[in-house]
């Protein structure tokens, strides 16, 4: 390129071609690649790299998103330790533990799915995705049961249900705990688990779409980055729960006895 001439870059052998033809040629060129290659990428390698960096950047924003709530949690936990411990002890540890196991299992099936896509085992891929979605739904179901229990116990904070105001009298208060401040725990509990549940719902929806395409044979060894990307998202949502579970359910248990 002659650096002194700032004219437009001209492709070779362009004489007589209209622009539309050259664009068409360009698109024709790209069909040499995989059919899933989008027009603006040069090759599959670039496309896959973009997807991978993209999901990691997205997960960073998610960490910051939950980070604000974790910060608030840390602040108030240190400010009202006994209140948080009393309220936390009232959560259903069994259901929480089952849910944790369910999610860990779902992460495993998800990883199996990604592996199956990589090695091109389409049947296994669909089965793994179906299992993952099923486990995700189990988690959400158990969560719904827990929420309902809280509703029955009058532990929904604030005036969301005007007929059912927050009433901490059902909680066994540890020494030094001010029942009025337990509302704060439940507020944070619902904010954090609720936000997590919304992410689970989005994840289930995402995996359903992936499963639909997987069943139609869209993914194989050359092209499976949507599976990988959704897998990373799913693992991330699981990891958030791995933090939420001890912070909300376990911390302060030793005060119980």
């Amino acid at each position, binding site marked *: *390129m002659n*650096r*002194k*001439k*700032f*004219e*437009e*870059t*001209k*492709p*070779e052998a*362009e004489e007589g071609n*209209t*622009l*539309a033809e*050259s*664009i068409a040629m*360009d698109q024709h060129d790209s069909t040499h690649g995989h059919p899933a290659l*989008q*027009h*603006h*990428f*040069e090759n599959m390698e*670039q496309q896959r*790299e*973009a997807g991978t*960096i*993209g999901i990691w*950047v*997205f997960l*960073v*924003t*998610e960490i*910051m*998103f*939950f*980070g*604000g*709530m974790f*910060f*608030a949690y840390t*602040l*108030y936990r240190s*400010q*009202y330790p006994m209140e948080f411990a009393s309220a936390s002890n009232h959560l259903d540890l069994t259901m929480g533990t089952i849910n944790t196991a369910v999610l860990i299992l779902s992460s495993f099936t998800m990883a199996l799915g990604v592996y199956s896509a990589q090695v091109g085992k389409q049947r296994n891929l669909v089965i793994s995705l179906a299992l993952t979605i099923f486990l995700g739904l189990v988690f959400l179901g158990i969560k719904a049961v827990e929420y309902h229990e809280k509703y029955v116990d009058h532990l929904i*904070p*604030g*005036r*969301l249900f005007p007929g059912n105001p*927050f009433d901490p009298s059902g909680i066994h208060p540890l020494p030094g705990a001010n029942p*009025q*401040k337990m*509302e*704060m725990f439940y*507020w*944070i509990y619902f*904010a954090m688990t609720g*936000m997590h549940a919304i992410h689970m719902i989005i994840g289930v929806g995402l995996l359903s779409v992936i499963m639909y395409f997987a069943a139609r044979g869209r993914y194989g060894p050359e092209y499976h980055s949507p599976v990988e990307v959704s897998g990373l998202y799913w693992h991330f949502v699981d990891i958030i729960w791995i933090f939420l579970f001890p912070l909300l359910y376990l911390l302060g248990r030793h005060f119980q006895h």
Partner: protein
Amino acid sequence: MRAIETFQAPAPAKLNYLNAEYGIKSWLLTKDHKRIGLLYLGSVTFFFFLGGVYAMLIRLELLTPQGDLLSSTTYNKVFTQHGIMMIFFFLIPAIPASLGNFLVPMMIGAKDLAFPRINLLSWYIFIVGGLITIYALLAGGVDTGWTFYPPYSTTSSNSYVVATGVGIFISGFSSILTGLNFIVTVHTMRAPGMTWFRLPLFIWSHYATALIMILGTPVVAITILLLAFERLTNVGIFNPATGGDPVLFQHLFWFYSHPAVYIMILPGMGIISELIANFSRKNIFGYSFVAFSSLAIAVFGFLVWGHHMFVSGQSVYAGMVFSFLSFAVAIPSAVKVFNWTATLYKGSISYDTPMLYALGFIGLFTIGGMTGLFLATLAVDVHVHDTYFIVAHFHYIMVGGTLLAYLGGLHYWWPKISGRMYPEGWGRFSALVVFVGFNLTFLPQFVAGYLGMPRRYHAYPPEFQVFNVLSSAGASILGFGLLIPLIYLVWSMRYGRRAEPNPWHLPGLEWRTPSPPPTENFLATPIVTWEAYEFAPPEETEVVGVLRSDKNLEDADRPIDGEP
């Protein structure tokens, strides 16, 4: 002196991104980053003039000390809406989402952003957020100030805080998605030969902006969501009645909203780097310093939020640390200003409209930045915090900085965007009017602020009237100056002279393709063999006179043709 040698007559492209497809649907479903950039351009212009109407109402009201034009409730809503519209729906998206969207792929030689569908989605998200906010405004408005400080925002009775909060929350995601797209695009889609240190500085500053967008925006999103939720439930983590802490909100809010200032100004700095280098036909002085100062600003920007809270009851020592860091973040900005000025040295400086805006930017940004030091200084901030001094300061940064850069960039790339030239005479005239009007509006506010006039006052003691009258007079000039470009730019889309592919004779990639560009930007994937702003071969480089002892002695001493 070397001269640009040849200019090939532009081969007028029959098909470009504007006429490749027709119809509303082809625009609303487009995945072309250029068209999405134009969608953003139209939307932010709308929000800008909406915010401008509110600004005019504020200035009208403040003409007299009594507060007789608007009721106090209306006035409070008006300044709140002005802030929300201008910050969340104009300043934050203005440059990155319109010009950035249009130019980031073109400047790095890519066909599009990495995720075109996400790009379109971000525009829809932005529009939905904007519509919800406008709904809140029509339904009754918000009177909390754009900062939404609780407990006022969670208890104030006559206010659509929830709807507005949801609107801002949603529009925040558009900013996150734009940032994500930029980062991935710059990492993966640079043309062959476009190394990191050949990137135009516009790209560096957008990369830094994108970092802030993805790291900061989610924090304010969750904060505002929690605030809205708190208002619904009437209890929560910011409410002192339930044991919450209203100052926690301020921390979380400013953790984003201070870096958000850099979301607003960094892209503007990128534009100015382009304008200064290109309109003086010089390589930028200290490319790597300018590039890294963008990143330094992005990083330091996250550490200084506490300087908004010197009088809010945070600890003295926290105040000192934040004050110190605030001074530290001023240095990269100062380096940029000095390097821009040094770039002009021995250049070939044109007086085209974009350059006038760039020169105005440097002057106003210097004042804005220097007055920022007053606010970082603990003892002085105690006095001027929440007065008109602060109002003047941030308008110098955001209007004198971001808006001027935006207008400069818009004129600069207008031939590429629209394929038409704007009328140069009108352009220069409006740049002058904007500059004069702006200074007349905001210089008096510094004085009023130090005299002690608090901000957000609907009525004020009569001794401040003279400054407010000056300010209102300036605002009307400024408003007039901003209407002129709106009119002639729209006019030029149809009647302007057709633009050449490279009307300014510049080396950047975006100028090496027809105006307006084809849908995939380039006729063939470009291969980059030159440095950024390489007007002349690097072997002719001169070493600055005062320091010429280091190297290239004989080269620097050689007489230069055409030197006066």
